[in-house]
């Protein structure tokens, strides 16, 4: 445990923010989805780092379980999201989210 916890956390934060940038700024729906995956990964890193450095003393596996669940959710979400994107693509022949602007008054 020579690497300080904060390093992991910083990397996770950086990863998260990069993913956030991807979500906020990319046009392509699949690109956005990839950004989301990055963010989830960052979260996982965070969780495991904390588990390893703080929680492990109690010998519960909470951190790992949490991370596994996150991965599960990420998978489900990716599947559904991509299915949606394909469905939209079939309808509109575009995956550009700027053209999907009906969510307004």
């Amino acid at each position, binding site marked *: 445990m020579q690497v300080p916890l904060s390093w992991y956390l910083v990397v996770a934060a950086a990863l998260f923010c990069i993913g956030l940038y991807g979500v906020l700024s990319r046009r392509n729906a699949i690109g956005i989805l990839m950004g989301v995956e990055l963010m989830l990964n960052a979260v996982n890193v965070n969780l495991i780092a904390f588990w390893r450095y703080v929680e492990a003393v109690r010998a519960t596996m909470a951190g790992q379980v949490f991370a596994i669940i996150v991965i599960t959710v990420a998978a489900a979400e990716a599947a559904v999201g991509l299915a949606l994107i394909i469905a939209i693509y079939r309808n509109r022949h575009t995956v550009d989210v700027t053209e999907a*602007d009906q969510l307004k008054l």
Partner: protein
Amino acid sequence: MTANFFFNLTWLIPLFPLAAFAIIVLWTNRNRLLSTWVAWIGIGLAWILSWIIFWLAGYHAKYLTASVENYPVPLFSTPTGSTELQVGFQVDTLTGLMLFMVPFVCLMIFIYSKGYMNYGTQAVDSRYSRFFAYISLFACGMLGLVVSDNLLTLFIFWEVMGLCSYLLIGFWFEKKYTDPNRITPKQASLKAFLTTRVGDILMLAGMLLLYIQTGTLTFKEIFSTEVLEQLATTYAFGQVPWATVIAILIFGGAVGKSAQFPLHVWLPDAMEGPTPVSALIHAATMVSAGVYLVARTFPLFVAVEGGTQLAVVAFIGAFTALFAGTMAIAQNDIKRVLAYSTISQLGFMFAALGIGAYVAAVFHLITHAFFKALLFLGSGSVIHGVEHGHHHSEHGGHGHESPEGDLRSGGFDANDMMNMGGLLRRMPATGWAFIVGALALTGIFPWAGFWSKDEILADAWNAFVHGTEYGVAKFWPIFVFAMLALAALLTAFYTARLVFLTFAGRPRTEAAHHAPESVPSMTWPLIILAVFSTFLGLFGMPWASRVYSLLGEYGTIMGEHIPHGEFNALVAGISLFVAGLGWLFGWLLYGRKPLVEAVDPIEKPLGPVYTLLKNRYYIDQLYHKVLVRPVINLASAAYAFDDRVVIDPIVDGVGRFGRWLSEWLKKAVDNPIIDGAVNGVGRVTTWFGEFMRATQTGQIQNYLLVAVVTILFLLILFLVRT
């Protein structure tokens, strides 16, 4: 049931007819029979109560030596500034006598009115119920006046009668005549009201001065010795004491109400009203209210030794008596002759008061009421009959109209005696009752008028011979006597003329030929009044005058000595002689050879004098020219000036200013500020809307960015805080 019990009910007397008025106006207006009975019951109850009280007052006066019922009962008082005005009623022998006469004569007239207003026939007057309401209100006014214990309520009831007089004279206000010189009821009622108003103003002035000087208007207090003393000794201006000023002013009111010269002009024209009105108001009650007023305030007149107020009264009275008599002989309208006769007789009464013959004046007042009412009602009956006869002959059927001549009957005047003649045969009951009245009026023994008129003449003579108690200059009474005697002569003459023209000879027109006798509701009052006219005088026979016994002691209580009218054979002889002479002339001219044509035999001999008399000395025209026209012109000028120079510019100015102001406001305020504000709001809203719309991009990434930024913001905020 003591006397006091009834005396305490005196205030009810005027309330019965007042209630009748209210009931008719509010409820029974449409039902004629009910209205008639309501009015009859109202006056009937007043009459019964009045006679009870009269009898009790007289009874007490005779047998109670101590105090005659000078019974003022304060009802309530109104606080007015520094003093309080007492309102109450009063019963004494003078009131008692008035209460004897007024409700009874009113009752007779009320009964007569039913037939006169054509109840039950096709020609029934359209405002029948209203008539009964008015005369009930009038009766309330007169009765209230008589039982008042202070000048204020007296004046109030005085004015009520003035109002009713206006309403009743102008009762047929829609009547118009073809002859433009003939006065219409509408004009006549206004004339009556305004002329009596002049008198009322003088009276009001007198009352105000009295109040200022003494602080009270109640009779009992005014006639106390201290107050009279004060009024007699304090001077208004120069050598003239307050008592004189006030008395003359109050007499001014009597001059107006009792149609004495120079305010006599309204009474003859008041004959435009229905005949019961003429009988009620202008013979029996209202005009005698003036005499009553002077009689009631008599202590004020005699307060000053040798004061001029009595002389003024006497002179005006005597002059009017003669003056009116001269005009009566040239009138062809039956009612106008009687009107002038009334003015003349009232002059007699005032003359009597002026020379101190208090008892004689009141006595004559009472008897005159009876026979004058009789005469008026009789004339009404005659006119009614002639009208019916006219329609009978004109239309050959029953086309009844309102009794007096009007436009619709093609100018046929049923009042004109020249259209009558020979009516004694056609209308015997009316005729004989009328003749009784005529005998009473002219003062033929033993009818009532003889006793009362003779007493006046006797007192005048005695005053001349023995001097009055009031220090009036010695020669005054002889003038009075002479004028009154001459007036009596004229009275007999024009009365005889009246009787012969109407009832003697042959009918001069078809109308008179067909005139029917009147219905019983009209003839019975005539008969009853005729009986009174015959026998009433006996109560005033000088040697056993009941009237004197009633009033004399009242006078004693008042502290004045009323002269007892001793029977003077010389005067009685003169009075009978004069009356007989008048009748003789009348018979010679009109009775011996009853007129066949409608030409008056005295017209030619008198010539221009006749014209002068017929036109009433042109006094009406004079008043119109000197008083009425200028006022009307002034009013028109003022109106025109006001309207065109004052009001129009103001109104236009206001209008223009308003327009200018609104335009300016529009430019300065409305457009920039309000429109600006409204438009501004719109613009801001639009801009804001557009601005806000930008947030609704529909793009999720935008929303997400916003969320992220918000979280970031909060994060940094927390960071900075800690």
